[in-house]
């Protein structure tokens, strides 16, 4: 018998369809957050999910595409920079898979993932929000109050932004990560292209 493996075009064409699906799911995640009033942003979970299912490139490009499309339709041009944040999300997810920080049944394995998604990822978003968006307060009462409080007590613009972003990124990214792990655990094996 001649042995044949699935050839490159198959993986490539799957990616072509998977990437827009991730982008659309990110968008729809945002809508679902509005619908359920869940306390998260909800528009990076599909990037994590895509990375968990189809690997780093598909997840990163899918997340990036989502932000590109939003930037060119609703959010305005500079919002494309958030696409790089989505790439960072995919990268962190990828690291977590590689390191095995992704086992829901052994919650302590998630701790390093939480550190990456919390304090470390937020350094990046803080840079973006100051350099591209001026670093004002977020337009939600609680983070804005935190922002004002830190600014008042320390007078440090960067720190105020950082702490404010922590207050939104931590719940969002932690919950999104758990959600995407939960979903992956229910996805039939044959869809999962990433080798663990």
């Amino acid at each position, binding site marked *: 018998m001649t042995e044949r493996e699935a050839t490159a075009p198959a993986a490539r064409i799957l990616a072509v369809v998977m990437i827009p699906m991730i982008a659309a799911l990110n968008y729809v995640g945002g809508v679902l957050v509005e619908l359920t009033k869940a306390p*998260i942003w909800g528009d990076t979970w599909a990037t994590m999910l895509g990375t968990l299912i189809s690997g780093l490139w598909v997840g990163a490009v899918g997340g990036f595409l989502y932000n590109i499309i939003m930037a060119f339709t609703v959010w305005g041009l500079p919002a494309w920079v958030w696409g790089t944040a989505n790439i960072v999300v995919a990268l962190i997810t990828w690291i977590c898979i590689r390191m095995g920080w992704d086992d829901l049944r052994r919650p302590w394995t998630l701790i390093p993932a939480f550190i990456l998604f919390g304090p470390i990822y937020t350094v990046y978003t803080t840079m973006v929000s100051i350099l591209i968006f001026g670093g004002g307060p977020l337009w939600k009462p609680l983070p804005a109050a935190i922002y004002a409080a830190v600014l008042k007590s320390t007078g440090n613009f960067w720190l105020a932004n950082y702490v404010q972003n922590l207050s939104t990124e931590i719940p969002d990214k932690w919950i999104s990560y758990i959600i995407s792990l939960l979903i992956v655990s229910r996805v039939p094996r044959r869809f999962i292209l990433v080798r663990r």
Partner: protein
Amino acid sequence: MGVVRRVLLDKRVLTGDSIIHRLDPRPKFFFFLWISVLAYVFYDYVLTALFLLVILALAAAAGILRRILLVLAVIVLPGFAFAIPILSVLFPWNETLMFKLHILGFELPLYYEGFTWGLSWPLKIAVCVSSALLFYLTTEPGELIALLFKLRLPYKFIYMVTITLQLIPLLLDEIQTIYQAQLSRGLRTKANPVKRIWNFLALVIPLTLSSLMKVQTRAIALESRGFSAPVRKTCLYDIRLRAGDHLFFSAMIAVTLLLAYLYLLYGFSPIVHLKFYYVAG
């Protein structure tokens, strides 16, 4: 569903016929890029407000002013509401006192630097958001595809952009179905935050699973229809530059020259003469 989401959704039923709609997508697209970049080149709230006015005037000509204002009201207005008061008082680089506000026996000094910062940045974002909407809402999906072809982007990318835009309404329809089903099974939206996350899960898991099933089938269907054929794909849509488009381009070039002159003369803040663009440290 929120206003911003609705703008995208309504796109399906939105067709208009106006001077702006009839422009070729290329001048509209470059105008969007051009004015967004300008909003960042200058740090001058009067000039930025002028940019915004120009966009809003074009939006009015296109008959979509109300929709754009609605979006701005939701995603930019709160920006002013939070940023101006907080930064006027607490911006670390505040030095020019405007006046002192007396509330409830407290004396709040308001400063010019923080005030302008809180005014300028949301204005910039307003320019970017409204110019993006102006382009997107007046461009037919077919024109958008033709534009991407003309920009010589790889077909895979064109396909991915187009299919994302088409997938979104399909997925939203599906959500409606799942949402109704879960409501009838006792999902309550007025719940505590933890419960709301469970609600989110109850919707997102079935949606994702059914979406993944579709990915494979669609990939097979695409492949069966020659998607991977190594040839230059045919664009099924035509776009052509007409006199009006050339006029539009010429106006943009003229304004660019004028603004370049102003920049060389006065720097990034030609009208209100602000002192610094980015904060140091």
